[in-house]
């Protein structure tokens, strides 16, 4: 079978589209687009870009045969990508379709303080069934993200995050590093057992609380809500037990992530970064999780061009980048070393699925112009694999 026949076959067998053997097929590349955040189209009203986001409980499949319950914007993890121009007026209608409280925080944006999405600080939480309207001017330009700021430890790793890209009028990065295409990658880390147990517990508590709220029986102590520290101290003196005390909550319940994702998926479902020789690609890196990542690209250096969305006056060349929680970095990868190259977290605990390597946020940079013959496995003495159809690289390995 030659390459042309091979590609024709691959197009006829959709179920195999993402198998490594047909990695370079057009259909596979097209299918790969679904592994990046889906753009959310705005409605324009009186010059304002209006977006609609809702939150609901959703089952996210991280890899084949492993799913968990998540909190998802518009039934997507990560949520849809909001992409606007610098200076645009933006209005976001946020509908809460869960039985939990939520807000949206616009991470890195200069929004009016009442639009910042911090419950009990800038707004009351968006309660079950409620809608809240956020409105702001899109600035500063750069790579940003949005996320829930209620119960952040749980809600963030449960899936409530999405990319927010503000395009500048004049892109200094593009001027200095003309790039041909760009990708957005949102990193996260999930303790799925913690998420499950906490979600179950919060859903149980909220059923009680909403019943009381609907009946006009708000109880400040039950909601653990006070107007001041003095009021809290007074309640404690009167017998109130804060939920963090040792007689109310056992210790050592902090999450210990066992799944690591890029755009809501773990290897081997992580996205491919396609490139061609002579091309440059811009990769927007967002750490929406609670763990640090040390991203290393094989066979290349890349340029760090933006930090927290802000263009660097002096871009730095490197091959390993520290992506801390809450940070965004933009990098430029130049296609100057044809091949299939691993791009992964060098804290190798993060390239595991449920403790098993390989997995997690393991990805590959794929040159589209890689000749088929360079992908041949070849033959090792005594280890002939061709008969098993194992003739091309890369493979999907689930246990090394």
């Amino acid at each position, binding site marked *: 079978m030659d390459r042309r026949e091979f590609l024709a076959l691959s197009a006829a067998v959709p179920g195999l589209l993402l198998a490594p053997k047909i990695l370079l097929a057009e259909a596979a590349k097209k299918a790969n687009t679904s592994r990046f955040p889906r753009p959310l189209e705005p409605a324009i009203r009186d010059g304002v870009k209006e977006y609609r986001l809702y939150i609901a*409980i959703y089952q996210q499949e991280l890899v084949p045969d492993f799913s968990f319950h998540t909190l998802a914007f518009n039934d997507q993890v990560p949520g849809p990508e909001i992409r606007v121009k610098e200076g645009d007026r933006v209005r976001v209608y946020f509908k809460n379709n869960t039985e939990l409280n939520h807000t949206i925080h616009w991470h890195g944006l200069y929004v009016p303080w009442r639009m910042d999405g911090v419950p009990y600080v800038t707004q009351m939480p968006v309660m079950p069934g409620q809608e809240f309207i956020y409105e702001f001017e899109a600035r500063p330009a750069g790579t940003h993200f949005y996320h829930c700021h209620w119960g952040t430890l749980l809600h963030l790793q449960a899936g409530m995050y999405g990319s927010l890209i503000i395009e500048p009028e004049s892109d200094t990065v593009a001027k200095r590093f003309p790039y041909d295409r760009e990708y957005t990658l949102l990193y996260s880390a999930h303790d799925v057992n913690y998420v499950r147990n906490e979600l*179950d517990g919060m859903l149980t508590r909220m*059923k009680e609380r909403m019943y009381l709220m609907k009946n006009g029986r708000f109880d400040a102590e039950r909601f653990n809500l006070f107007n001041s520290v003095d009021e809290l101290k007074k309640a404690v003196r009167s017998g109130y037990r804060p939920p963090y005390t040792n007689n109310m909550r056992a210790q050592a319940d902090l999450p210990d992530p066992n799944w690591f994702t890029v755009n809501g998926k773990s290897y081997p479902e992580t996205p491919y970064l396609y490139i061609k020789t002579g091309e440059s690609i811009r990769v927007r890196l967002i750490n929406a999780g609670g763990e640090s990542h040390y991203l290393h690209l094989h066979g290349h250096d890349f340029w760090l061009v933006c930090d927290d969305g802000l263009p660097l006056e002096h871009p730095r060349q490197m091959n390993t980048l520290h992506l801390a929680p809450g940070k965004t970095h933009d990098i430029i990868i130049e296609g100057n070393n044809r091949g299939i190259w691993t791009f992964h977290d060098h804290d190798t605990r993060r390239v595991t699925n449920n403790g098993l390597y390989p997995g997690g946020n393991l990805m590959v940079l794929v040159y589209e112009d890689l000749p088929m013959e360079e992908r041949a496995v070849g033959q090792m003495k005594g280890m002939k694999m061709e008969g098993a159809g194992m003739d091309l690289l890369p493979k999907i390995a689930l246990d090394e």
Partner: protein
Amino acid sequence: MKKFLITLVAFALCLAAATSSRAELTPEIQLGIKGVFSLDYARQDGNSDTTLVNFDDTSIMLGFREKLYSDYRGQFVVGMKFTDPDSDLGPVFYNHIFLRIEDKKSDLLFGRSRASTTLIEFPTLRDDDTLLYSDILNPHASAAGFEAEEYQYASMLRGSYLVADKVWLQANISSFKEDPLEDFGVNAAGLTLEYLVPESQRWNRKVLQQIGFGFNTFLDVEQPGGSSDNLINTMASLVLNVKPDPVHFWDLRAQTIYNNGLSGIDAIGDLKDMSQAESVSLLASLRYLNRKLEWPNAQVALTAGYKNFPGLQVDTNQYGFILNGLHRIGSGFDVGLQLAYDSFTGDLAALFGKDEFRMQAFLTFEFDTRWNNQFDERDSLLNLEHGYIP
């Protein structure tokens, strides 16, 4: 005590395995503990008796659970309880030893567990406080003395299937033998149909929490003349949220049992006769639960029972009341008082005395925990309301 030590050693070995080798799948380990300690005062027909420390019903249960290669889950459970001080069963009784396989809609249990001779539980200090009203009585139990465990537990093969939303159909064949290791012969079979709101959805404000119907047939029950016959009992139950309020919660529960009785039983001389005589029993309780900061704070419950034996030569019946109250002093830790009164007439007066009054001051503690948590309960809110994940 030897059995208890063996169980503790086995548990320690399992914990060690859970933290060492990863060569095999380590199951989820569950531990449930219930400590029931009371100071008892009893007065029967004018004679009083005091027990300084009664820890009957204190129990420990261990569960080991894992996902099977299909969508099923497998579980092994071993549990033991400490018996009455004067029990012939020894100080420790293994009340749960079973393997269980379940999926979203089905549940198969094989081993010893709580017999399907009652449909609901009542808010009393100990599980057997209302046994004479709440359970179908086991005619295969030894006649010599009253051992509650002989009535409450059986070896069984029990299958349950979710035929509709919250509606379970359950069938069992059981062995009420004293020692199933020597004789595992089936001597009972039963069927129940039950609408049951899962525990996780108890705050959904629905009034109807449970309604159930069931029957149980004890096979080859020996009759006084030496022949044997089948003994059929039917039962029905109901649990209502009277006031489904998260702070001031009221519920009502009731259960009735009709025992067809065996022909020829027209007098009660011992417990075996009692289980074989035609009878109608009714047990009901009203409970008030006060919750503070989303945790139980205090509870008061009044339970009343009545039982009549229409087929006897002498008019025989019994009735009783239990009033108890408890206050939660820590997570899972309760202190309280229970008052109980029972009255017996006819043949039962000779067996149990005319009446009995009991007062119990108690301290209880219970908790459940798990290690190596890997998956959710079938009846969790996430699985019930947001799509089941096997």
